[in-house]
């Protein structure tokens, strides 16, 4: 039997081409993902390992009990501790470091980097007067306030030389600093496109942290002292409960674990999309083997007639599938390795620099790819294989293809209706529930399966809808329509493959559009402010910025949003400090009880969810431990409907400020006399010193920013789903090519009695178009339904959510389906038109 199967594969090379390609693409996606993620992950781990080479023991603020987490805790890493650590018997040296956000402007005043990886730190000279972490290329280290050093990459990019004046900003106000030195570094943030500016330690502490304190103290071990021994020594000198020591190896391991976790998330995400592509591939494989079995009915019956058992017949089909799967998996693996290498090159090209490292092709990657390819193919060929076994030996004697009985379609339709009905009911029920995610997921899967099963039934009426259009194409159109519904199962499987991709694409588009609208509405509804001022890297602003804005003539109202941790009962909550006098003029909050009433003194307003959770109501007295450890009390003066922009416990800054040693504002809301205008925005920007690190956004900028983010995400998802669509295109090509082959006699006859080549081509193309559009309509319809249903769930947490049907996009997707049809028909139509008429007529 094996030889027969092998011969069959070889004999049907061309017909198996599309199937092989489909499996190959799916496997390539899987192996590409595995190669890419393990390569990147290894490279990052190697680079982070290197980063901890110079650290034997690191002292950091207690992780679970840091100042933010434990308001009122004692100060931690000061100079005394540093000195003590450096003088430990096992220590060679100790380095104190401070780090934080620092924006650097280029010569035109524009921000260098994207704002998220623009960092500042301190130059900590060791015993030899040099900081081993930052070897200087030019000039000297910064010695006092007003001097900085820049990393070589940033300096080169902006064209700065030693002696130049550089504009920087740490938390708002622009500072002009003299560039004294340029250093080289392999800091990850810098290699990823950011910048690093260094100050002398005292200045860094003042600007980025707390005077006299470090963020981290790194201790090097003296020769002969192990990291563990040094850690034990360090532990003894640590202030109680405020700091902890970790060995360099432990830190490297922790980071490696973190990287691995991050990469795992990415890998799972990518594999999900690979799974979708493979799932789509299953339809094509099943279709192909069904057709092959149908075409070989006589052959298989003959095998049965000469004594092959049913099991042997099934096995011969499955062996064929194994061979096809294996070939496709090997090709896919090779392609996937290429994709992995290409992706890395692409990421390097776009600036998101990945540390260098070898391409990692692990045995598990190879094994997974091969197993996935073969198992998917064999699974998909299972049903056709069983059907082959059911061919009676007598079928060898007549030429009737084993046609599916109507009874099985009845069973099929009943089953499909049950699935689809139950699924739709579950989805609908889930939309009305508070936590309907699981039920909705289950319902969606059931509905999708139901529609898969029902597609043969749906094909006739839906395709009949197209007949008025097809009639315009004369006989070609008529024949195309009839050919499309001729084998409902085949058409259904082909269209379903396309449907899967389009359902997901449409659903995501509907959700994204609606969420965006909801957020937009939220911003417009809850804000009366004209502008929002914030730091580019979403780091805190200096309180000076709010003060400066408040003093401007054109500003009628302004308020910072200032966060401060506080202990309420036994949990830490964040208090939001605002300018109570102006807050009402800047926001439009819905109060369910009480109100702002000028928000002053110990009054606080609380969002409804928090109030409900804590059991507070207007008039409740709330004892609070502020971040400096002092105790106080707040009185709830109002309960409002919170949203993503404004929520939590809000009180006047006058209450909060005395308790903060380092006040920082997340953003400042501004209302001006003239309202929103470009000129008004410009004058605000100028007033803030033309600072590249500060972003002044009006509501439109905010919503544009959100739209951009959502669009970026949507485009990424489109890209990932494109693979499923490509596989579906292969499926349409496959079905058409097989249909053309099966109908070669008919096509020959049509040519003989006078249908010219273009007529034949048109017929095949229209059939392809009809099948593709059928899948497209189903997919878009289901996508809208799922999008709507998921939106109902989202509406629970996003009050302003509003369903937006992206008609333009939906039209585009339908056009895409049509394009798929046209493209898929190119080759089969040519083949049909070139068919040798005589051979076709003579063939029996």
């Amino acid at each position: 039997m094996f030889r027969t199967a092998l011969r069959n594969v070889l004999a049907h090379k061309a017909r198996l081409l599309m199937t092989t390609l489909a499996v190959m693409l799916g496997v390539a996606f899987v192996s590409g993902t595995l190669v890419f993620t393990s390569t990147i992950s290894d490279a990052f781990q190697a680079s982070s390992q290197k980063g901890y080479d110079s650290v034997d023991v690191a002292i950091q603020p207690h992780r679970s009990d840091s100042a933010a987490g434990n308001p009122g805790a004692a100060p931690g890493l000061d100079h005394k501790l540093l000195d003590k650590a450096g003088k430990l018997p096992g220590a060679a040296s100790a380095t104190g470091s401070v780090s934080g956000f620092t924006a650097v402007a280029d010569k035109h005043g524009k921000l260098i980097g994207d704002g998220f990886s623009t960092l500042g730190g301190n130059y900590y000279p060791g015993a030899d007067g040099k900081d081993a972490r930052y070897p200087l290329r030019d000039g000297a280290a910064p010695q006092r306030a007003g001097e900085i050093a820049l990393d070589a990459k940033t300096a080169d990019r902006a064209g700065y030389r030693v002696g130049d004046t550089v504009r920087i900003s740490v938390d708002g106000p622009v500072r002009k600093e003299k560039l004294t030195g340029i250093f080289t570094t392999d800091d990850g943030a810098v290699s990823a496109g950011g910048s690093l500016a260094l100050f002398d330690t005292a200045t860094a502490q003042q600007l980025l942290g707390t005077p006299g304190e470090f963020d981290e103290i790194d201790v090097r071990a003296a020769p002969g002292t192990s990291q563990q021994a040094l850690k034990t020594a360090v532990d003894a000198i640590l202030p109680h409960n405020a700091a902890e020591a970790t060995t360099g190896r432990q830190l490297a391991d922790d980071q490696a674990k973190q990287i691995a976790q991050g990469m795992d998330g990415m890998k799972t995400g990518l594999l999900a999309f690979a799974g979708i592509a493979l799932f789509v591939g299953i339809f094509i494989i099943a279709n192909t083997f069904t057709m092959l079995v149908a075409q070989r009915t006589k052959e298989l019956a003959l095998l049965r007639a000469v004594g092959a058992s049913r099991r042997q017949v099934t096995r011969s089909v499955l062996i064929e599938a194994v061979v096809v799967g294996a070939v496709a998996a090997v090709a896919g693996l090779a392609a996937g390795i290429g994709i992995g290498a290409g992706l890395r090159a692409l990421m390097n090209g776009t600036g998101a620099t990945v540390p260098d490292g070898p391409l990692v092709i692990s045995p598990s990657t190879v094994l997974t790819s091969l197993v996935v390819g073969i198992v998917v193919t064999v699974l998909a060929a299972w049903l056709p294989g069983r059907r082959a076994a059911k061919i009676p030996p007598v079928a060898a004697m007549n030429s009737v293809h084993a046609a599916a009985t109507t009874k099985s379609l009845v069973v099929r339709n009943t089953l499909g209706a049950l699935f689809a009905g139950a699924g739709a009911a579950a989805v609908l029920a889930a939309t009305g529930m508070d936590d309907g995610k699981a039920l909705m997921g289950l319902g969606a899967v059931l509905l999708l399966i139901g529609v898969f099963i029902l597609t043969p039934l749906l094909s006739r009426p839906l395709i009949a809808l197209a007949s008025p259009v097809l009639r315009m194409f004369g006989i070609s159109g008529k024949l195309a329509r009839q050919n499309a519904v001729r084998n409902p199962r085949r058409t259904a499987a082909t269209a379903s493959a396309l449907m899967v991709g389009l359902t997901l694409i449409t659903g995501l588009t509907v959700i994204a559009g609606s969420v965006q609208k909801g957020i937009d509405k939220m911003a417009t509804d809850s804000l009366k402010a004209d502008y929002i001022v914030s730091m580019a890297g979403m780091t805190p602003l200096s309180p000076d910025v709010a003060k400066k804005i408040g003093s401007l003539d054109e500003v009628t109202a302004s308020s910072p949003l200032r966060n401060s941790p506080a202990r309420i009962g036994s949990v830490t909550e964040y208090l939001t400090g605002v300018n109570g006098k102006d807050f009402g003029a800047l926001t439009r909050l819905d109060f369910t009880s009480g109100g702002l009433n000028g928000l002053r003194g110990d009054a606080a307003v609380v969002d409804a969810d928090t109030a409900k959770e804590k059991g507070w109501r207007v008039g409740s007295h709330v004892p609070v431990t502020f971040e400096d450890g002092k105790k106080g009390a707040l009185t709830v003066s109002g309960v409002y409907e919170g949203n993503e922009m404004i929520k939590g416990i809000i009180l006047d800054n006058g209450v909060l400020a005395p308790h903060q040693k380092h006040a920082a504002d997340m953003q400042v809301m501004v209302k001006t006399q003239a309202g929103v205008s470009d000129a008004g925005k410009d004058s605000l920007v100028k007033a803030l010193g033309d600072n590249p690190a500060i972003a002044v956004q009006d509501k439109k900028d905010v919503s544009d920013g959100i739209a951009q983010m959502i669009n970026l995400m949507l485009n990424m998802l489109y890209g990932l789903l494109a693979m499923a669509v490509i596989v579906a295109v292969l499926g349409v090509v496959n079905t058409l090519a097989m249909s053309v082959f099966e109908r070669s006699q008919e096509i020959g006859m049509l040519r003989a009695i006078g249908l010219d080549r273009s007529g034949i081509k048109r017929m095949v193309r229209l059939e392809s178009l009809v099948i593709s559009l059928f899948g497209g309509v189903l997919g878009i319809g289901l996508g809208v339904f799922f999008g709507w249903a998921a939106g109902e769930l989202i509406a629970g947490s996003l009050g302003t959510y509003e369903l937006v049907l992206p008609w333009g996009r939906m039209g585009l997707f339908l056009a895409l389906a049509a394009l798929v049809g046209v493209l898929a028909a190119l080759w089969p139509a040519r083949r049909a038109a070139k068919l040798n008429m005589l051979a076709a007529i003579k063939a029996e």
Partner: protein
Amino acid sequence: MTTTHSGVSTATRATAVAARATDLTKVYGQGETQVVALDAVSVDFRQAQFTAIMGPSGSGKSTLMHCMAGLDAISGGSARIGDIELTGLKDKKLTQLRRDKIGFIFQAFNLLPTLTALENITLPMDIAGRKPDRAWLDRVVETVGLAGRLKHRPSQLSGGQQQRVAVARALASRPEIIFADEPTGNLDSRSGAEVLGFLRNSVRELGQTVVMVTHDPVAASYADRVVFLADGRIVDDMPDPTADLVLERMKGFDAKGRTS
């Protein structure tokens, strides 16, 4: 080769020529493997005449038909349908010619399973985008006895009925000439006789021109004239054939075939 001695009898019915081959040559392959399928064949098919082409397998009878019907390219000589020379015609023109001037009947019926009997019959007109002549269509349908079965699909019809649909399809567009390739090859003798009867009637009563390739002496006996081919040449031309005469003539080929 000329057809002089049959010309007298057919001239009384019609004298115009529906199709003509002059030194028609068809060669397959090249060099060593070259096979001459037709070797300078010259033959006229007169209007309103029922001609049968006979010969042992490999004699070139099907090739002759394919070449005359514009289904296969010619290597040399000329083939005409009416006044139109087929050599040198582009595929598009040739397709149009087949559509408008030629009817076909195949051994394997070759109906479209998705179309009803009536739709199959009007298919050539549908392809041309012409409206069928209703009265003529009714007459053709009645002649082949399919009046009650027009809504049926081919799978619901017997073999004989399917071939009658094919005959009606060939007649319906009133082609200048109908080529039938072993039209009774897949039929039982009774159905075969029916189909052949219709073909003969269409010549006698409707003035249709029919050229039929067959290897069955009984089928050939329905024709007005039998042209015999062997080894790519016309070796005989028999007017008013009977089954016995044809059989006798064929036996001669068989004997010759066996000795060579």
